């Protein structure tokens, strides 16, 4: 119990951010026309690729002699990049098709 209270105390700013971001997310999605649902899902999919930062941090903190650790970190960065780059490029490709419309 104490642990939980401590956690809340230590991270109170982040908890505020979480709550506010939840509402931001709800607010900006709520008025989107169905037309854009697929690109939106795809764009959101690219954004959660931000998890790649975690993978890079792992690599930066990794003991350089820990070969298996570096290997797993390497894979994580590759997969994270796939998520980011693939996500943004495929969203752009979808949206490119809307361009000629007025």
């Amino acid at each position, binding site marked *: 119990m104490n642990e939980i209270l401590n956690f809340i105390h230590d991270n109170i700013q982040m908890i505020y951010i979480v709550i506010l971001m939840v509402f931001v997310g709800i607010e900006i999605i709520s008025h989107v026309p169905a037309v854009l649902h697929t690109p939106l899902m795809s764009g959101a999919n690219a954004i959660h690729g931000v998890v790649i930062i975690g993978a890079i941090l792992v690599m930066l903190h990794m003991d350089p002699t820990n070969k298996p650790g570096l290997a797993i970190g390497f894979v994580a960065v590759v997969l994270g990049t796939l*998520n980011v780059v693939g996500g943004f490029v495929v969203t752009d490709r979808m949206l490119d098709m809307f361009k000629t419309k007025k």
Partner: protein
Amino acid sequence: METALLDILYLLASIGFIVGLKMLGSPKTARKGNFYSAIGMTLAILGTIFIYPKIAHLTIPGFVYALIFTAILIGTVIGWGIAKRVEMTKMPELVSFFNGMGGATAALIGLMEFEHNIGHASKMSMIVAGLVIGSISFAGSMIAWAKLSGKLRKPVRLPQYNILNTLLAILIIIFGIYIVAAQVNNPLYIYSLFALAIIYGVLFVLPIGGADMPVVISLLNSFTGLAAAFGGFLYDNMAMLTGGILVGSAGTILTVAMTKAMNRSLTAVIFGAFGEGSKNADSREKIKGNIKEAGPSDAAILLNYANKVIIVPGYGLAVAQAQHVLHELEELLAKKGVDVKYAIHPVAGRMPGHMNVLLAEANVDYDKLVDMDDINNEFPNTDVVLVVGANDVVNPAAHNDPNSPIYGMPILEVDKAKNIIVNKRSMKPGYAGIENELFYNPKTSMLFGDAKSALTKVVQELKNM
């Protein structure tokens, strides 16, 4: 100084994500919005690689940097290549695939951070949560990807899968809490938890029918967002936190919007009420009646002498890549003075907006695409409805048959039109696996064949008139 610079970069990234996602909500700004998000992401990544080590006073050996850059290069080349090459019809599977990659990244982070944080309960709880959710998202997305790409067509249901899945979920939660609370230091535990979460992800998506796949992908999308946010807590990283939570909440809203469009509850999707419904459908008597087959010339005549035509596109259009010839048909009819519109069901295709993307590719005028709610009252004064590869979204059973698994789902009320032409490859039921009485309607003519070749023939006939 450097700390502030990194903070600013992460702040810019967060703003990029929020503004970008907001701009994705309007067709005019969407492309720019996506670009802004991408810039934000690039800033965050570059800042992490170049500035973070200075702040944390880390000396990074050259080969570690080389590894990171090589990994990013490989990921970029492969990701860019797949995203550029894949056909528009494969888009939903692709989103699922990339989503799985993000989940896997979150899971791997958890596996590696475990031993550095033993005894640190709050960090460990973030690691465990990120690992579990990331693994479920990864495994589930891969199954969804396999299903959508046709590698796994039938829902697989283990006996009592609902109870089994629920028990497994409870086991994972208890096990996760135990790892945190007991300050476990044996990596074997975290690998076991990882394995359990992977198994759960597979079992979670396996029984879910293909028709519900968009909902599942959207749900897993928000899961990965959540996993990224736990990473944000773990590293005190604002870019990860804001990006993750934003996607988590946006993805949840999108999921809810989709289930609403299908008139299903999320619990029904997950716990498989659909499956039980399908059993009823199998035991029900087959619809009796005759179907009327029409050739391309019959279809062309019907369309040629109509005043008002509504086209209902579905997944069959995407599979046949017939969007260009359909657009040609629409322009041809418009030239002849026929009022032509497209009726877009929210869940036509394999993802919401799938049809819009597909038709946009063929340069169909944006204003001709009409949403279900706006067009349903136009069907009674429509001369001809042309259904191209759509099935469940026009099935009157959703209105008439309380036993039908899709009963209550909002549909396009095409049966109210004066004439209906249905283009399908065969009489095979649609994705929900149920019969469609619309095909037996006396007003309906069936135009069998692949959408592309059938429509090409209709276009030729029309040109000769």
